[in-house]
């Protein structure tokens, strides 16, 4: 196996460990940190099922952002929607054989996924253009958008500019997944794309991108408004 392949195999496994391990570490850490008092943001359902149902609606619609800033909602919702299709588009590289519904939606997923640069550029411009957002934006905020943009552009170049050997890429990825690595395709654009994804994997759990998991554990939105009926004990409150 070439030195390059060894390097990529090693760094891919490291990336996977950091990404999944980091996610688990952060989310379990959140879940285990106590909530001394009940602090649901009201009005809020009194039952766990009611809260779950409301949360599904909030997450699928980005309701709070919709109510807070429509123009940012357009960019933020657009970005996440496109990312779903990018994910669908990439699943075929990790599944063998590709199940039929997934195979059928590929052209559509490509069509939507190819729009990825649009919301990213829009959100970056919005940060720079509106005085409030310029004020709050740090290098790290632009970095997250820029990283995704570079990943998107390099990925699109594989499809439209420097045609990559999809079969070879799939063999490489499946090899990694099945713990029997094969040679990495020595296609420069692919190596750029894949390297950037690894950077994202390392960065994700320890940056604001953790919001993806954090949204499921936020005490204000996920606690039920059940104070009158359910006794809540503060684990460090003493009695």
């Amino acid at each position, binding site marked *: 196996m070439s030195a390059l392949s060894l390097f990529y195999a090693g760094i891919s496994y490291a990336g996977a460990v950091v990404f999944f391990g980091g996610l688990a570490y*952060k989310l379990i*850490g*959140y879940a285990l*940190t*106590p*909530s*001394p*008092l*009940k*602090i649901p*943001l*009201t*009005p*809020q*359902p*009194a039952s766990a099922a009611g809260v779950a149902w409301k949360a599904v609606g*909030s997450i699928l619609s*980005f309701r*709070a*952002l919709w*109510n*807070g*800033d429509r123009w*940012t909602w357009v960019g*933020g919702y657009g970005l996440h929607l496109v990312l779903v299709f990018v994910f669908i588009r990439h699943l075929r590289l990790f599944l063998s054989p590709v199940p039929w519904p997934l195979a059928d939606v590929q052209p559509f997923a490509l069509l939507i996924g190819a729009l990825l640069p649009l919301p990213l550029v829009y959100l970056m411009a919005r940060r720079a253009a*509106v*005085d*409030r*957002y310029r*004020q*709050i*934006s*740090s*290098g*790290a*905020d632009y*970095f997250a958008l820029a990283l995704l943009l570079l990943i998107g552009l390099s990925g699109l170049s594989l499809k439209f500019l420097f045609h990559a050997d999809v079969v070879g890429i799939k063999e490489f990825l499946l090899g990694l997944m099945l713990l029997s690595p094969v040679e990495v395709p020595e296609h420069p654009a692919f190596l750029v794309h894949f390297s950037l994804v690894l950077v994202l994997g390392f960065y994700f759990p*320890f*940056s*604001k991108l*953790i*919001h993806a998991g*954090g*949204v499921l*554990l*936020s*005490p*204000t*939105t*996920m606690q039920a*408004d059940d*104070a*009158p009926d359910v*006794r*809540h*004990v*503060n684990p*460090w*409150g003493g009695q």
Partner: protein
Amino acid sequence: MAKEKFEIPSLEDALDTPPVRKGASGHLKIHPAPPQMMEKLGFPPALVEGWQKKAVDKLGELKEKYKSLKMFMEVCVKCGSCADKCHYFLGTGDPNNMPVGRQELMRKVYRKNFTAGGALFGGFARAGDMDEAALKDWTTYFYQCSQCRRCSVFCPFGIDTAEITMAAREIMDSVGAGHKYSLEVIAKVHDVGNNLGIPKPALSSTLEFLEEDVKEATGADVKFPVDAEGAEVLMITPSADFFSSPHVDSLVGYAKVFHAAGISWTFSSYASEFANFGMFIGNYAQMKKIAERIATVARDLGVKRIIVGECGHAWRVAYGFWDTLVGPFDTLEVKRPVHVCEFTNDLIKRGALKFDKTANDGFTVTYHDSCNVARASRMGESPEGQFDIPREVLKAACNKYVEMPDSVNREKTFCCGGGGGLLTDELMELRVKGAAPKTAALKRMMDEKGVNMMAMICAICKAQFTKVLPYYDIPMEVVGGVHQLVSNAIILGDK
């Protein structure tokens, strides 16, 4: 009113997003708590040696004790949805009064000390040390947040700036930098039993005076009992209700409701305060200690239930926190506190109260949702009871009732500008500016709908609005309590 040296915001555009004006409210400072007061509450008398590190250590301790704090430090994506939702930002334009801007004052320190990115790439990630400049920002802008939770309504992750402000104040207190106003109030509760420092003789004579007053006005023997053993109900109300105007008119209303319903009740001189400023300073032990007076009295007097008066943050503490802090209330028949609006509304629904609504015909009434009632509690069984029940009471007592626009109503209500421990004279400029959004909505209601009464159920809102509305040439008489209007219209029997 041109006696102040600051510009009064125009109500024309007070609800619009202002341009960012850096440092616009940086000059507004709190009065620091004097050393003996700090010590009395168990805090260091003055800024301690090595406070920089101790503050960071305290932040590290709190993030492991509060899931809210840890998550809210880490999951913000800075989308900006909250940026123009704070009344203090709308009133001042200061970017540190954007909720995210305020949160960032703590996140800077958090990133530097508790994240790899912040430690490695300080400037890029906007990480910074806990230093003189940071402390100056903290002592300024964490006392320009009224903990109203309006920002979190618009946050995709429900990030609640109130939690961050509370933690910041707890950290500052712990290294010896406290705010005089809140600590003074808390000290009075411990010494005398209430925020105003009213001793029992003064309380009793006030209540006797009220009895005579009501007797004269109505001919009915409405009682205002104190420390009456064997009473069915313990009434806990903010101490402002005993002495301030218009608060006292609602207190008379409570007494009339009890009288008309024929239910025995009592105030307590030991627990003569509903407010709990322990929440404002984010100090769990103080919050618990203040609540303990009430739990103790409830057990000692052997009452069957606790009914609480018109106070916003205290209702949050009672509804959401009492049971955790000092419960369970096993000696009571009704184990959770009942809001006086729930109580009155139940009586109305049962037909136990009668009203002469024409007594309020001089008023066109609207209702101001107070933050902590709206966004941090509930009344009754329905998830929106905290909005509907006070309105039902008002409609039962008044013929002319109109609603505020949706954008400033119910969970989207604006703070009065004086909540969260900011109801103090040195912050008058902030209070006037922070009141601008809700005042603008009120002014529109006055001009378009002829509103001349804004009813509310919060002692701080009442005190704040009566003080700041005159700056906008609105008479303080438009401020009233829900039970003030009940008091006007209720028909008293001969009980």
